[in-house]
């Protein structure tokens, strides 16, 4: 790793001030993506501003019709949280399926959605549930937040503080995990929300996206059969040594049907 200075701010406000004054400083939450990238010298920073331990970013609460998860809540916290389990069990399941126990102890929801890896799980949950990303400056709707491959609506030095999930009627998430890394080769989040059915796909292509045809079909009939023969543009999908475009598209159909079954319970 290149040299850097480690900074442990006492509050989000202090972290924001530090980032504003040091343009080459970077946030660290769980470090489970950032540190491996820095070890490979694919990333560099003058300072690592460690917000992961901040208590104000770790809370998980139910606020009326919403579940609010602090950005530094770890995957382990979310998988085991009774509040999450009662409000959105599909989200607890999603967290339980990320990486491995050691990674889940450290990795956080804020770090995951700030990174926006095209194969990460949380982007599917956040987009599929129509959540709102809360930063220290503003609130961003999931539909505007994710902007393709490792790209988000976050500005320079903007800190994700929480994600606000409207509690759905029912939801389901199923991924086909890459056998070596655990990342989604294809993962589908289906939610029946107050404002209609939402279907978000991760692991498939350039970044998480909504499958409009599936949303329309499931709104008419919430059953795996409703997905039969639906249009799904294979050009959304990436192709690599693990899978062709067509194979990924097929996986996506199968995962979507399983997610519907899970939603139906």
């Amino acid at each position, binding site marked *: 790793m290149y040299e850097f200075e480690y900074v442990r701010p006492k509050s989000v406000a202090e972290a924001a001030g530090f980032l504003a004054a040091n343009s080459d400083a970077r946030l660290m939450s769980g470090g489970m993506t950032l540190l491996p990238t820095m*070890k490979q010298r694919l990333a560099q920073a003058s300072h*690592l501003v460690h917000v992961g331990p901040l208590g104000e970013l770790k809370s998980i609460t139910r606020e009326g019709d919403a579940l609010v998860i602090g950005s530094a809540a770890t995957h382990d916290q979310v998988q085991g949280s009774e509040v999450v389990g009662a409000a959105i069990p599909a989200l607890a399941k999603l967290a339980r399926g990320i990486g491995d126990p050691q990674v889940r102890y450290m990795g956080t929801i804020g770090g995951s959605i700030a990174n926006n890896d095209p194969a990460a799980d949380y982007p599917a949950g956040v987009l599929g549930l129509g959540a709102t990303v809360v930063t220290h400056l503003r609130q961003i709707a999931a539909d505007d937040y994710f902007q393709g491959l490792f790209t988000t609506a976050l500005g320079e030095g903007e800190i994700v503080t929480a994600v606000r999930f409207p509690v759905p009627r029912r939801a389901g998430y199923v991924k086909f995990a890459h056998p070596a890394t655990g990342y989604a080769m294809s993962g589908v989040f289906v939610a029946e929300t107050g404002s209609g059915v939402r279907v978000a796909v991760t692991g498939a292509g350039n970044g998480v996206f909504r499958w409009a045809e599936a949303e329309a079909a499931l709104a008419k009939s919430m059953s795996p059969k409703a997905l039969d023969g639906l249009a799904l543009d294979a050009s959304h999908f990436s192709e690599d040594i693990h899978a062709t475009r067509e194979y990924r598209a097929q996986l996506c159909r199968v995962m979507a049907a399983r997610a519907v079954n899970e939603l139906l319970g």
Partner: protein
Amino acid sequence: MSRIELTLNGKAVSADVEDRTLLVNFLRDAQQLTGTHVGCDTTQCGACTVLVDGRALKSCTLLAVQVSGAKITTIEGMANGEVLHPVQQAFSECHGLQCGYCTPGMVMAVTDLLRRHPKPTDEQILHGLEGNICRCTGYINIVKSVKRASELMAAG
């Protein structure tokens, strides 16, 4: 440079480290505790797993400064003199290792797994050891070792 203070295998340790020092390098190079292994560059293999305040973490993906103040246990801190820790005893009895490269990390991960699930099911064992890769055993004897360790620990 930063000053860090840790409790390492029960002993108080303080040291000056570069901020970029990984915990695993601090353990192996500065403290000469070479039982903790490095098996990959990608946070995947788990050979470097140690206990930080009782939780199994990958020491190759933690900064030493980040864990200042914590209690760290490495494989060297498991046995009580000549008496093996029950998890070590179980791996030995059940032939839960071949080359032994993954074993220190496995033992630490299993210790945390049994803290969370004292009587784990097969599913809990397999899911709980997803962060530890073994290229020798095929895992069958590792699963047996976890069950044996659970019995040994229940027997006290």
